């Protein structure tokens, strides 16, 4: 019985990799039509110098909306599965990262280094995250990358127990996430009322303000990604399971 199974697996791998191999290995020149058009028109269409964010927040903004939905559903699903994961065992509970020093078990291997570094490093990484988010349309970066860096800074703050800031409170985080998602949907619908259709840029392309729509989208997506990943990481690190 065992051989039939491995034989099946080998046949499956061979068949699929035959077809995929032909598509990957075959030699073909890369089309330059899209690149030339963007090189000429990207700036005055969307006002963004970084053509990649011009595409994924301007021309193909629908993909970014789909991507944010995938992130939202994945994190909601993970949280739903995490919540009824059941309580950890007692000694696991004691070693949790987020417990203040006096409540934690003595044998938890937590050097002082982590506390000093994390509470000092947190604000700097937060600042860098917002920089990457806000300058998305000029220098490389943008909504998602900025959001993840903001999320890692929030995790730093949650690790360090000296700074008890509201930022690491999961209720506040999920509120910001809900507002950001609502703002994203409203921003995408706003194009409809300015007759440029769904996900259109409500600001007229000619004016030099048209980059603001991309900045707005970057901020909203950055906040949403940052808060949702931070919420998940804090819940994973044994923070409050009260979601």
């Amino acid at each position, binding site marked *: 019985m065992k051989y039939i199974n491995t034989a099946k697996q080998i046949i499956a791998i061979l068949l699929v990799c035959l077809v995929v191999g032909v598509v990957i290995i075959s030699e073909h020149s890369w089309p330059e039509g899209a690149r030339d058009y963007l090189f000429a028109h990207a700036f005055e269409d969307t006002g963004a110098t970084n053509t990649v964010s011009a595409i994924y927040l301007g021309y193909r903004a629908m993909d970014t909306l789909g991507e944010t939905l995938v992130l939202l559903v994945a994190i909601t699903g993970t949280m739903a599965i995490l919540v009824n994961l059941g309580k950890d065992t007692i000694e696991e509970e004691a070693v949790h990262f987020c417990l203040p020093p006096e409540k934690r078990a003595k044998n938890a291997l937590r050097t002082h280094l982590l506390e000093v570094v994390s509470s000092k490093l947190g604000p700097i990484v937060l600042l860098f995250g917002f920089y990457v988010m806000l300058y998305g349309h000029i220098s490389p970066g943008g909504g998602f*990358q900025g959001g993840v860096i903001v*999320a*890692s800074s929030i995790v730093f703050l949650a690790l360090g127990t000296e700074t008890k800031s509201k930022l690491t409170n999961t209720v506040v985080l999920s509120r910001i996430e809900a507002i950001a998602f609502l703002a994203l949907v409203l921003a995408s619908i706003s194009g409809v009322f300015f007759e440029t259709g769904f996900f259109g840029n409500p600001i007229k392309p000619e004016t030099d303000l048209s980059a603001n729509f991309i900045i707005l989208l970057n901020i909203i997506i950055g906040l949403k990604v940052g808060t949702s990943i931070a919420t998940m990481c804090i819940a994973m690190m044994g923070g409050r399971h009260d979601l």
Partner: protein
Amino acid sequence: MNILILSLILALGIYALLCKDLLHSIIALSALSMLSALLFTMLRAPDVAITEAAVGAGVTTIIFVWAIRHTQRREEDS
């Protein structure tokens, strides 16, 4: 130069799959993400490099380590 980094990535990938201790595999995977982020910067794709480094290496490693903490670290040699 690309070929060197790509073969290193392939080696890390195969090591990650064959290694018995899952924690070593996770470290190999995050090294793989970091190397591909380096390759993207060399291929003039800075946006994708930041995403791969921050999202690929950062968040994936946190999730994998959390999953390992809740299950078992050594793979059963059945």
